[in-house]
């Protein structure tokens, strides 16, 4: 469009000057229509974001839901025999994830009741809410209200009924709440780096979700991470030296864990999610966030700044990172599940959506569960925990003085530290030497 007048609508300029100089609007001004269906009036959210006033409410909604459904089907995230746990924080992203999963379930139930042979069962859905007040005491004030609100929200999403699991973050240490809280506080106090502390809490949060999922028979964990959150993650990972493990974290499926994690909203941006909440009247609860002062916060501000300059920057960042090679576990694992319907099994095999679970070629950091890069291994085998961790966790989470490492290890939850015992350094030279020892003429190793 060549028109340079300010306030000109992208649809074309309709103002024209009369002879006496005042502006007149063309009588035949076209009514704005949804660019997709071309029949309804477009929705304006008035939030200053891009693409405002282009789609009508229905098309917008079906667009977002369509992305969700495509992600679910093309990555075999939820199949009829699954039992799915939705991680719900009360925020917009997880609220939308919960809503969409619920709608998927309702549709499946409808089909089940309508079908004659009832061959395809309806997948089960549960909801998990992590109570972080032990880590962030400032949250404890509003926590009981928040939990009550979560409970009523989950109740409203039935039928089909969904179990709610309120998981205190300290539950990774055990069921005795007082002792567990104490251990959590001790552990967090021993981490001096602010960013390290925040990240350690994220890892503990995931552990607690995994715990509640596996203890209650769920086989999928739905996390509502959207494109925008992943864009921040790409940059924080880069900045912390975690370039190797980055590609593991940003795929649709993350099956490193006992209960595989799926990200059905990975292709939706924050703006779409907030708009959808507004459109559908989905209520969210924003717990007073503990002020983030470290690197994570700096990166969020940076991404917000970049978004201002170019609203599609988040998508470009995630698209770039998506070009990195994923790992073998970024697919749903193959299981000998007899209750998986034949139709599903055939489909999964046909599209190569699963991987053979016995192909474990990676070692993982016990704290962040990131795949370890071979070059990361430390030279001196002083401490088993230090050896086992990735370089990023070594710097920002582990204590710097070697003498404190043992004590720190005792503070970690059992699940993390138990992995360290299994991690053995494979010395190929010694191994080979053992094999050919009887044929070596000289004892001296330098003779080789």
């Amino acid at each position: 469009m060549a028109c340079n007048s300010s306030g000109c609508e992208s649809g074309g300029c309709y103002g024209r000057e009369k002879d006496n100089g005042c502006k007149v609007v063309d009588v035949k001004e076209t009514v704005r229509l949804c660019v997709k269906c071309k029949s309804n009036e477009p929705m304006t959210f008035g939030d200053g974001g891009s693409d405002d006033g282009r789609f009508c409410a229905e098309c917008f909604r079906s667009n977002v839901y369509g992305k969700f459904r495509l992600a679910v089907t093309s990555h075999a995230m939820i199949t009829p025999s699954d039992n799915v746990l939705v991680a719900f924080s009360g925020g917009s992203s997880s609220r939308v994830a919960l809503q969409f999963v619920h709608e998927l379930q309702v549709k499946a139930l409808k089909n089940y009741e309508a079908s004659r042979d009832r061959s395809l069962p309806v997948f089960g859905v549960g909801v998990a809410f992590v109570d972080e007040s032990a880590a962030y005491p400032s949250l404890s004030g509003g926590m009981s209200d928040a939990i009550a609100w979560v409970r009523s929200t989950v109740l409203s999403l039935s039928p089909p009924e969904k179990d709610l699991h309120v998981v205190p973050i300290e539950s990774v240490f055990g069921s005795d709440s007082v002792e567990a809280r104490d251990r959590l506080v001790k552990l967090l106090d021993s981490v001096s780096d602010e960013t390290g502390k925040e990240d350690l809490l994220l890892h503990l949060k995931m552990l607690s979700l995994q715990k509640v999922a596996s203890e209650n028979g769920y086989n999928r964990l739905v996390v509502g991470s959207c494109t925008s959150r992943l864009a921040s993650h790409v940059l924080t990972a880069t900045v912390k030296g975690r370039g190797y493990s980055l590609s593991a974290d940003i795929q649709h499926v993350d099956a490193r864990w006992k209960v595989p994690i799926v990200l059905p909203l990975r292709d939706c941006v924050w703006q779409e999610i907030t708009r959808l909440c507004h459109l559908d009247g989905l209520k969210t609860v924003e717990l007073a966030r503990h002020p983030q002062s470290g690197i994570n916060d700096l990166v969020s501000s940076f991404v917000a700044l970049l978004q201002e300059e170019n609203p599609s920057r988040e998508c470009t960042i995630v698209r770039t990172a998506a070009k990195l090679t994923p790992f073998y576990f970024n697919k749903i694992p193959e299981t000998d599940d007899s209750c998986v319907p034949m139709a599903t099994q055939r489909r999964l095999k046909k599209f190569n959506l699963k991987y053979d679970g016995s192909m474990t070629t990676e070692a993982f950091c016990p704290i962040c569960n990131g795949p370890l890069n071979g070059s990361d291994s430390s030279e001196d085998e002083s401490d088993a925990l230090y050896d086992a961790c990735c370089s990023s966790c070594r710097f920002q989470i582990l204590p710097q003085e070697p003498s404190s490492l043992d004590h720190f290890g005792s503070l970690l939850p059992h699940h993390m530290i138990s992995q360290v015992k299994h991690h053995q350094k494979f010395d190929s030279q010694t191994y080979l030497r053992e094999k050919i020892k009887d044929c070596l003429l000289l004892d001296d190793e330098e003779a080789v």
Partner: protein
Amino acid sequence: MEASEAKIKKQGASRLCCLCNQRRPVLKRPKTLQQICKECFYEVFEEEIHQVIVKNGLFKSGERVAIGASGGKDSTVLAYVLSELNRRHSYGLDLFLLSIDEGITGYRDDSLETVKRNELQYGLPLQILSYKDLYGWTMDDIVKMIGLKNNCTFCGVFRRQALDRGAALLKVDKLVTGHNADDIAETVLLNILRGDIARLSRCTSITTGEDGPIPRCKPFKYTYEKEIVMYAYFKKLDYFSTECIYSPNAYRGFAREFIKDLERLRPRAILDIIKSGEDFRIATTTKMPEQGTCERCGYISSQKWCKACVLLDGLNRGLPKMGIGRARGGVNGDHQKETKKPASAARSLESKQCGSLDF
């Protein structure tokens, strides 16, 4: 008594240099935050660079090496340190200074004076090449035509070729540039932000272009910009310290600001970014574009015409947008379309050929 003791402790006057434990510390090392004396700083600074050179096998004895010299702090310190290490550790190198005059008044003409002084101070022979001689355009002319956006693209592309031509003139085996850790970290971030996965896989290499006309390496890959400034400051080295007058609008500015903030929070993050860049799992198939030669000037190119020729052609025809942004309609698509139009606009400008050196 306690208050003043605490005050002295804060000033570090009662402390000694962490490394030699003899002298008084005068600075806090940006990379490690250690409090050290001047002499120890020189030592660790120079020794770390020496280790980078040795561990990465950057040079071979007897090589002729050109140092890309702009007169700025990076290249001045590079020239100084390299000639010092060459002498101290007997690298056996023949060093030269190579400078490019982009024709930016009030910036480049001043910094060139610095390089001429460096020639005398360090005893290294100097060669200067100008955009005017090579391409027929100065950066001032280019900015007058295209404005202040995308001008860095022109300058960068032209300079890269100019350095290669200068290196060929000097008959050197290798080119070294003063790109420091901050530069490389910025480049890694920029490539992520801009979606350039191919460049992302190459930008952390310490040596590039081994299969091209002149390999070039970056001995300062792990050296912090702040430490380079500190070194130049304490050694009282002669350098030109103004920012290019056309740079404020560069997109790189975003990445630079961010990295400055990051360095304040966690100094080692700069090296962590470089490490991430090296560790990214990028399929080798995405790495190298097919290498050929430019039809117009014979320079190395992955397309029919090298980027410099495309840009130059655009300038000469009065079509400054040519070569900027994504190519449409196949290789050098815009170029093919434009040949059919009457070049009436270009008639007023003399057709200026790309330099005449053959490769």
